[in-house]
């Protein structure tokens, strides 16, 4: 009888010990994973590559998303990395392709960048279109847009666009970066340009 009790005690200890170790390990691994992911999710990490620093970042410093009257900023990941966890991880996995091209030197000069920028811009436009401009809407939520405070023309166009189910990127291309040469043709070819019938 007493032997059986002792056996049960060891068993209990083993189970609770394993569970405790599991929880601690889980917290460390999960936290560590997210911590590492956050390390790669800020502006200073993005511009540690000269491809970003000398081209797109340079242009971004000229935009209201970088500097404006109230000092509210949107940094690289605010627009280019999704916030929901699963989409964020997917985007991070896709970024391995960017690492590959970084080491291959695909756009390591300004000339190469200019040659590829049309293609790169189309990638971003397509993503934004597919996600209904999710990253824009993290801050610019149409539900809370006060049309009364917008300029007449802007309010008119916004209301109309929302009624038609259009998305931010349909019109607001080249907001934080310059537009590539021949951007209109690129956008039209990929069906990313609002047409007159859509706007009427």
């Amino acid at each position: 009888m007493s032997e059986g009790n002792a056996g049960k005690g060891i068993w209990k200890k083993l189970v609770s010990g394993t569970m405790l170790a599991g929880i601690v390990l889980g917290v460390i691994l999960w936290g560590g994973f997210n911590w590492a992911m956050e390390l790669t999710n800020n502006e200073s990490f993005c511009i540690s590559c000269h491809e970003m620093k000398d081209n797109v970042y340079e242009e971004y410093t000229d935009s209201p998303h970088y500097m404006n009257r109230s000092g509210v900023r949107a940094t690289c990941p605010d627009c280019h990395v999704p916030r929901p966890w699963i989409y964020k991880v997917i985007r991070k996995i896709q970024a391995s392709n960017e690492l590959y091209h970084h080491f291959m030197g695909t756009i390591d000069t300004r000339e190469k960048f200019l040659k590829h920028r049309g293609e790169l811009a189309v990638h971003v436009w397509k993503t934004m279109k597919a996600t209904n401009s999710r990253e824009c809407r993290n801050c610019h939520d149409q539900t809370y847009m006060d049309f009364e405070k917008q300029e007449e023309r802007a309010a008119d166009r916004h209301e109309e666009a929302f009624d038609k189910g259009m998305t931010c990127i349909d019109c607001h291309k080249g907001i934080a970066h310059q537009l590539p040469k021949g951007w209109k043709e690129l956008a039209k070819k990929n069906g990313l340009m609002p047409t007159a019938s859509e706007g009427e």
Partner: protein
Amino acid sequence: MKKITLAAMAATFLLGSSMLAMAEVKSLRGDLPLDAKAKPPHKARVMSKSGGYKRAWKLQPPLIPHKIDKERISLDENSCFRCHAPDTYKAEKAPMISKSHFKDPEHPSDKNFIRRRWFCYQCHVPQVEAKPLVENVFGQ
């Protein structure tokens, strides 16, 4: 003797007038010492006007009735073409760039735009809320 008197008169006149001029000369900074802070200049806001401004004379390049601080014009890019180009003005409900700015005025498109006219702000300018320094009677 006459000459001396004349010379003396001229000298007095010159001295007097130069002193007068010296009294009138004023630094653009005002009388402020260099280490004092000057009052910042008045900042005028760019006006927005729906419907646009009327032309002051027949061939005046139309004025811009909105802010342009976010617009960019470079060798490759001209953000005015987002709204004012022949293929976008209808959707954006904006006035189209004048046909006179195209090599083929009857078939205006981005491709046959006259590049000499690329820098819009050379002729088209926005207006700020500023009181005129002198009365303007042009055209009256």
